[in-house]
């Protein structure tokens, strides 16, 4: 039964690029209705993992189960139930924001009228008013592109959101609104799985986190369980991932 299954369950997931393991034996369970942060330094394997969960990259080995469906065998059923904000926003430059949202709605089999109506409402909610509603996406700023990608991920009311750096480039007001919206989605029972380098945001939003380093899972659990004493999430992250500063080499600076 899919209703009892966790939002995401990956077992011994591996992805090799040539000889290099981008993801190396990752096993992870994300419960339903959870705001889950997936953290790691640059090149740790976060984007590769999220791409595999989205069905954009095939794993070299391992198993993935999303909302109780097996990826990639039940790919279409999974895709119909997830909302995506990829790292590189896969937008169509010569459509306006409203046209793009309507297009995405129809990709998820919404009736055309419903897709138009939801697109209009989302455009208002994400503050694409007046002139910006007539702009082509190619003319949008980076933050606007992220906002329209986020709006597109919501149009079909998904059960699971997979988001790769969703707040990158978004202004403070827009980011706040997006966070509130995501929290509302979690309250209604949806699951949010996001990657972000802004640890303060993750600390404030997420109940659970997983930290990945060099393709391997190095910590996973509720934030308060992982932290020790007055440690912040940033302190925890730095402690686990480690830093190797060699600023003395830059004596000319």
């Amino acid at each position, binding site marked *: 039964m899919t209703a009892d299954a966790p939002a995401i369950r990956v077992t011994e997931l591996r*992805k*090799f*690029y*040539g000889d*290099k393991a981008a993801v190396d034996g990752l096993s992870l369970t994300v419960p339903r209705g959870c705001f889950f942060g997936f953290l790691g330094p640059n090149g740790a394997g976060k984007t590769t993992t999220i791409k595999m969960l*989205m*069905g*954009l*990259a*095939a794993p070299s080995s391992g198993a993935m189960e999303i909302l109780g469906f097996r990826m*990639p065998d039940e*790919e*279409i*059923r*999974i*895709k*119909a139930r997830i909302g*995506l904000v*990829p790292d590189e926003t*896969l*937008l*169509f*430059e*010569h*459509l*306006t924001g409203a*046209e*793009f949202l309507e*297009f*995405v709605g*129809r*990709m*998820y*089999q919404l009736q*055309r009228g419903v897709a138009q109506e939801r697109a209009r409402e989302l455009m208002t909610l994400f503050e694409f008013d007046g002139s910006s509603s007539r702009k*082509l996406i*190619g*003319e949008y700023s980076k933050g606007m592109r992220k906002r329209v990608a986020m709006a597109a991920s919501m149009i079909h009311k998904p059960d699971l959101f997979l988001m790769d750096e969703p707040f990158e480039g978004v202004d403070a007001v827009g980011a706040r609104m997006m966070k509130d919206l995501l929290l509302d989605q979690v309250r209604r029972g949806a699951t949010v799985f996001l990657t972000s380098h802004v640890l303060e945001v993750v600390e404030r939003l997420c109940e659970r986190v997983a930290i990945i380093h060099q393709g391997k899972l190095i910590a996973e659990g509720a934030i308060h369980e992982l932290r020790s004493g007055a440690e912040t999430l940033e302190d925890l992250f730095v402690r686990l991932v480690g830093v190797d500063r060699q600023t003395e080499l830059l004596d000319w600076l």
Partner: protein
Amino acid sequence: MNPQALAILWAQWRTLANFYPRARRGGLALSLLLTAVWYGLWILFAVAASMVVAESSSRAELYGFLAPALLLAVLYWQLIPILLASTGASLDMRRLRVYPIPHAQLFRLEVLLRISISMEILILIVGVVSGMLRSPLVSGWAAFAFLPFVFFNLFASVGLRDLLTRILGRRRFREVAVVALVMISMLPQLLVYAGVPEPLKRLFDQTTLIPWPWSATAGMLAGDWGWILVAAQLAWVAAAYVFGRRQFERTLRFDEEAARARGPAGSRAPSLAEWLFRFPSTILADPLAALVEKELRSLMRSPRFRVTFLMGFVIGLMIWVSITFGRVGARGIRENFLAFVFAYSVMLLSEVSVWNVLGFDRSAAQIYWLAPVRQATVLAAKNIAAAVFVCLQLAGITLVCVVFRFPIRPSTVLEAFLVSLIFLLFLMAAGNLSSVLQPRAVDPNQNWKRSSSGRIQALLLLIYPVLSIPFVFAYFARYTWETDLAFYGVLCFTALVAAALYGVALEEASSAARNNKERILASLSQGEGPVSN
């Protein structure tokens, strides 16, 4: 058609509807004119085909015309995308595969889009059908034999495109694959010029007994609806469907990043290439030297550039060797063989290094406006890098000619080098202007798309012959006065004109780059709709 497919088509229509009102009217008018001329020519061919079919005096004569014509149609349909370095309109899978669209639906759409690379053949088919309707020899119903022929080609075209896309996505392998494909596609031309070898002739005579898609279609069009031909046609369509569907499915699952990672990791040890990259710094001053070095590295690491470089080398030699030393080789061409090969290679290489020099830099191009460097210096650096690669290519061709003992002399090598470099100077003068006036984002990893805009492609049809005129004069002067002095005199004058023109064009382009920086940067970061061309 299912709602998702309709939505994709709707989005593509909106993409075009949003794009064209914002495009420049002059460019649009020129594109429309050239499109009209191109398809007008094909309509003329169709009228001619209609007349031949209608006036055929026997079924054998009709078959004799249709079988080779349809073979050419198949070759055109399947090979022209390779020759034009463009696979026509196709679904942008990178963006569409995140949505829950059944693969069968995507495949049907992709098949429909394959019509975009076969409009010329469809025009010819209409011509043949109209001829059949007027012919007393065959029934108009026989024209239905075209249906399996068209479906065979559409399915095969999808399969071939997907197969190529995946092959070309693989690191290192793609360059070899492109050269191999181009060599295969050049075979018909080679056979025309060099003649068909006897063993191949015998093989072809035997294979006419096999009901190939073209010969079976021709037979059915000529009125032979025997069960062998019908069964053969259906079998070909089924085979093409299985091929196309399987290749399409594999492309949907294709992981380009993983494919790119396969193969040997690039050696970082000092090498000949590293010496070449560093060489400009020994004779030039920064920032020009740094810019040239960056350009040499970027171009050398761009799959699209490498493929074109190899194509310029291989096709240049293959075409001109076959023309020069084949059955129909003219004396004038034979004497100036190397100059022709060089000029042809320069033209091919200019596609990726002259006409849209900012294209490969895409959004990173803004560094040229941020760094304390003149735009003229940036353009000059890109031109120097292009000239370095042109010289390398010409040296390579010369070496092959020496190894294979083609009849070349040191004087002809010098002459060909001079002609090519002066020609390149002209091209760079025009290219600098086109690069800042018509910039276009290009994916350096994408092998199969044109680098310059459609308008520039159209202008090239005029520019190449016009820029060749001074060189024609030089050769004409030698022919008239029968002395090399006349040739080099005209060449010297041409070089001076080219240098002056280059200087003026560089300053103009530099000024245009300063004034239009926002438009240039916006153009270099543009993408496309759900269907890419």
